[in-house]
């Protein structure tokens, strides 16, 4: 394609810029005047509920969708109007989209063959890419014969073997079971750090986004609600929407919330007490224990304590709760009332 120097911004190699990009489907404004600047080598997550426009944003970067307004830049160069095969990005698709009629090695070789890379180099690079994802010994099998996790690795190798300046991943771990997903999160993160490739990662799983990303963009109805480092998103959510989506919140009123782990709980009255009630449910989640407390006015409070120093409280027990005023989160947008009260939704068996 074009050479890096002609753009006048060689230092932007691997950057992605969306400048006021919109994409409309009929009456739905899937992406709404979106501004997003992904730094070279960054691991950036697009986080948000289903239908908020994450996939469409990714497809606009990949070239599968063209914006109705605005401009897309990759490595500092405008790519608006360019088809996917002329863009220096590769995608890991949600359902992997491996070619069923080709072997694992042929799947991985596909992109290199399109670029007319020589046979020997193709073999070497395919072998390297497969080794990188620990799939070297499955090279000659058909993808349909592989497990979900293995297919996921092949899809990753098939994209990365092309050495794109940006890798786009659309909920790549969504189809995996929990344990495998957590392993893959770590592997992906390490891989990204080693390669230095820019990753734009789409997920609706806030834990995943916070664990892996350098920065997280929380999306809402085609726009970015907050873009920040994971810690900042968690500690200082810019709106009630972000606060509710990232981790659980106890909304005390429409504009004020407190995180479950910021609440102290005990059987005896305590100084600075803010609420009293009875224990409705207890969930032991390994490192943490969650209590659902029913207050006198029928509201509920979710309390999360480290299991090591969680008090021994039985069901139906009268309890007292306290928190520090400084831990309260205040929001101007006041969407709190519209957000479902936190329940023990993650609470399964002990």
């Amino acid at each position, binding site marked *: 394609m074009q050479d890096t120097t002609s753009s006048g911004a060689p230092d932007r190699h691997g950057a992605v810029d969306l400048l006021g990009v919109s994409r409309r489907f009929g009456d739905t404004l899937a992406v709404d005047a979106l501004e997003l600047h992904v730094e070279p080598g960054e691991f950036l997550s697009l986080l948000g509920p289903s239908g908020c426009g994450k996939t469409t944003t990714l497809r606009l970067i990949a070239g599968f969708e063209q914006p109705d307004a605005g401009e897309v830049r990759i490595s500092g160069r405008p790519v608006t109007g360019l088809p*996917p*095969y002329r863009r220096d990005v590769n995608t890991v698709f949600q359902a992997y*989209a491996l070619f069923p009629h080709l*072997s694992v090695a042929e799947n*991985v070789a*596909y992109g290199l063959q399109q670029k007319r890379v020589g046979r020997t180099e193709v073999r070497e690079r*395919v072998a390297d890419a*497969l080794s990188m994802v620990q799939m070297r010994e499955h090279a*000659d099998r058909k993808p349909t014969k592989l497990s979900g996790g293995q297919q996921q690795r092949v899809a990753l190798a098939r*994209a990365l073997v092309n050495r794109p300046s940006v890798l786009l991943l659309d909920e790549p771990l969504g189809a995996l079971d929990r344990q495998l997903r957590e392993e893959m999160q770590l592997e992906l993160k390490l891989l990204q750090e080693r390669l230095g490739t820019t990753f734009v990662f789409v997920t609706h799983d806030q834990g995943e986004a916070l664990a892996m990303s350098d920065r997280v963009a929380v999306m809402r109805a085609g726009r970015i609600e907050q873009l920040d480092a994971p810690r900042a998103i968690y500690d200082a959510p810019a709106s009630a929407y972000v606060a509710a989506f990232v981790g659980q919140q106890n909304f005390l009123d429409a504009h004020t919330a407190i995180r479950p782990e910021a609440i102290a709980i005990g059987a005896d009255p305590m100084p600075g007490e803010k609420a009293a009630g009875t224990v409705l449910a207890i969930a032991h989640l390994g490192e943490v224990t969650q209590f659902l407390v029913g207050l006198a006015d029928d509201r509920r409070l979710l309390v999360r304590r480290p299991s090591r120093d969680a008090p021994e409280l039985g069901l139906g027990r009268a309890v007292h709760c306290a928190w520090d005023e400084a831990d309260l989160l205040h929001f101007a947008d006041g969407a709190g009332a519209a957000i479902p009260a936190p329940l023990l939704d993650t609470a399964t068996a002990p």
Partner: protein
Amino acid sequence: MRARPGFLLALPAWLWLVVFFVVPVLQVVWFSFGRKPGIFGTHDNSVLTLDRYAEALDPTFGTVFLNTLWIGVAGTALCALIGIPTAYWMAVKAKPQWRGLLIALVMIPYWTNFLVRTIGWQVVLAPEGWLSTALGALGILDGPLEVLNTRGAVLFGVVYNYLPLMILPAFVAFDRVDPTLREASRDLGAGRWRTLFRVTLPLAAPGLFAAVILVFIPLMGDYITPSVLGGAAGSMVAQLVAVQFQAGQNWALGSAIAVILILAIVATAALGYALFRLVALPFAAARRVKLGAP
């Protein structure tokens, strides 16, 4: 031997196949080794002989066989050439909301009877028909249209009659290819044409072969189209078979001709497939990536 419940479940299907396909075909094969006993008999297998095959391969019949083969191959090729791109366009390019309408349009000729619509073309293509008059009036044609009762008219007729039979299964074949595979191909640097040849066509291939076979077999055995449009110059083997069974009352010779037709169909289809594989082989080999054991 292991228990095979699958075989038991398939038993009704096997029975159906045996009763309604294998038995009649075997009967035809059996008749083909017999003879016509006299003026009033239709078949006699008391003496088994290959003489009917010698008769069937007589040069007078031979030209009809060649005619049939020509129309069968050219007609199927034309159907494929027109039908497969059409089906591709319908399944891949056309807006999904138009699909129902497009499929209905393809099927419209099927709402009228095969014979009736072929006779319709006879009326149109006749030297005194409106097409002839119109072309004459426009000065495109000097004198009446002379296509009726030629091989060309039969070819036109079979393409018209069998095209939907090509389009519909080919449409299903293309429709079943996951669109995200095409996106993956484009994402990996392949343009439209390379995506077509490396992803869409290979994945649709089994369905496309089925479509070609589905057209080729009945087309080779077509009786109505050549009877209505072909005249003497455009006659096909099925007409010979019918003449022997009906007017000639010679079931033995009719059977021998039918058996040769069946063998010709199978041989041509096999040859076509082998040729296709031969042409595709070097392309497939160039793309193969075999890493072997690490």
